[in-house]
């Protein structure tokens, strides 16, 4: 088991390093000169040359990469070109706000999705199951940016229940003001993923419920509650862990969109800001941080899966 975790950790570190190369390469090799991107289309050739010298853009790319990567290892994420200050504290602050948003959503997705999925599976074919099915289709197929706009229209513009956009710091606005700004983004961010987890939990639960050992458990005369909790759930939830890891990725992606719509000052909006203003150091650093978080989420999911799956736990098949 320790070997399994170590191998996964090593793989994650490898992927992370490779991604620094990929991110650096994409930002520096794709057509669209860096200095030009920063200065815009009306830049004079001399201004471009001066900036290129200042940023060290005349060095060979591997040298530039090495400088950047070495600084990264020392915790120096570079300086934002637009804000003219070190990137690291800016990212950290935004990351904390995003973590609040994503954290609430993830708890909602995991608990809501699994509970609804189990409910749908045990009430198969009944009205609740069918209603959930229709809801899932809607929430999976309709993009979250459109749900965001509907939510703003409905709850902010028409009913005036909640603030449409923005963010209120906990210290200044108090718990209510802070929470009020979180309700709509968290709801939109979770809705599609709750549907997704619900649907997959339902199908994995149904598959387990049709298996022979469930038949055996029922034939023994075990009460249905015990059959569900002891025999069905542990096996049905195993695939759900993998799904939650995928959804952590979708959640990170959703954060970008939802933060943009709700003008929520988190990491996702910061990335979009960096792209709009061609702030490449900020973009690179933000991407690295998100890659690391995603790799960590996958690692945690792998380890949980390994811990809960007896075949891996006892080291027979360390796939």
């Amino acid at each position, binding site marked *: 088991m320790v070997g399994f975790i170590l191998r996964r950790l090593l793989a994650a570190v490898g992927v992370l390093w490779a991604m620094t190369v990929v991110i650096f390469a994409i930002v520096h090799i794709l057509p669209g000169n860096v200095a030009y991107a920063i200065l815009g289309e009306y830049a004079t050739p001399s201004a471009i040359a001066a900036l290129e010298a200042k940023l060290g853009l005349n060095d060979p790319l591997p040298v530039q990469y090495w400088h950047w990567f070495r600084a990264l290892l020392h915790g120096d994420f570079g300086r934002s070109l637009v804000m003219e200050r070190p990137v690291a504290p800016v990212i950290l602050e935004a990351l904390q706000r995003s973590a609040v948003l994503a954290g609430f959503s993830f708890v909602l997705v995991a608990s809501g999705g699994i509970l609804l999925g189990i409910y749908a599976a045990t009430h198969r074919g009944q009205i609740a199951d069918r209603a959930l099915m229709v809801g899932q289709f809607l929430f999976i197929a309709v993009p979250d940016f459109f749900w965001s706009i509907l939510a703003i229209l409905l709850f902010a513009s028409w009913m005036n229940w909640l603030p449409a956009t923005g963010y209120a710091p906990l210290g200044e606005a108090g718990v209510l003001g802070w929470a009020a700004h979180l309700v709509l983004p968290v709801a939109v961010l979770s809705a599609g993923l709750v549907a997704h987890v619900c649907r997959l939990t339902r199908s994995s639960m149904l598959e387990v419920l049709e298996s022979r050992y469930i038949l055996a458990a029922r034939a023994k005369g075990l009460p249905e509650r015990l059959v569900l909790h002891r025999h069905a759930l542990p096996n049905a939830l195993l695939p759900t862990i993998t*799904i939650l890891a995928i959804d952590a990725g979708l959640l990170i992606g959703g954060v*970008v969109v939802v933060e943009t719509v709700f003008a929520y000052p988190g990491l996702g909006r910061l990335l979009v800001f960096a792209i709009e203003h061609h702030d490449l150091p900020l973009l690179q650093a933000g991407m690295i941080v*998100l890659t690391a978080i995603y790799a960590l989420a996958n690692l945690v999911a792998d380890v949980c899966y390994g811990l809960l799956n007896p075949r891996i736990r006892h080291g027979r098949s360390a796939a």
Partner: protein
Amino acid sequence: MSDAIAAVLTRRAPPPRAMLIGGAIVLALAILAMLGPWIAPYDPTAFAVRLRFSPPVAAHPFGTDEFGRDVFSRVLVGARFSFAMGFGATTISLLLGVPLGLLAAFHRGFVDEIIMRLLDLLISLPPILLGLLILAVTPPSLWKTIVTVGIVYVPILARLTRSVALGLLEEDFVTAAHARAEGAVSILLREILPNAWPPIIVECGLRITFAILLGSSLSFLGLGPQPPSSEWGLMISESREFISQAPWIGLAPGLSLGVLLVSINVFGEGLREWLDPRLAGRGHG
């Protein structure tokens, strides 16, 4: 390869009704999208300053926007972009992913390892972030968004093709082909590919929904077609400013996008159920 599909089609039960209904709506929308520029009652980019923010009326069924442009015409003309994204990007994933998957399966060992590890890199960022990263530096445009979405979903098709092909390579008819001294290309194209199609088609049906979702999200973030294009994601993004004043500007393209995506999804799920019942309930993103 059409023989293989025909064989699959004839041995199955009749297609589920939901799939036919979904398919019919998609087809109708596709025809509307193709005819869009010719049947649109107004020029989708023509300003009419005196008609700004007109609510839906008979002359403008979806109202007009902040420049007095007819929202109905814009939605109609914009439909093409969503179809281009969905089908264009999926075609790109298919053209890149299937050969990579076949190669990886056929050579195993070193080649397999290299291909799969490179593809792992593509999925080490969530789809929308990989899209942002690829599109961040260059000036945005429709075709770049399509190519990017296509690249983002290459690993999914490559992995699927690889796993299907690995199974088929064990079959007797492949051993027979080896015995006839058929080359690698011949075996892959004539023996493996024709038999690997059904699951790949099913995956593509579902991929189109996600391609449109991802493409319009990127476009919503400003990394797709640029104004005055009437791509739906962009239209919705631009409508935000006037959401309380003139909600129809965003609702019209949003609901159209919803109808399109739900119908493609219903069709894709039906296709999956029909061609491969064992796969039901898997996969997303």
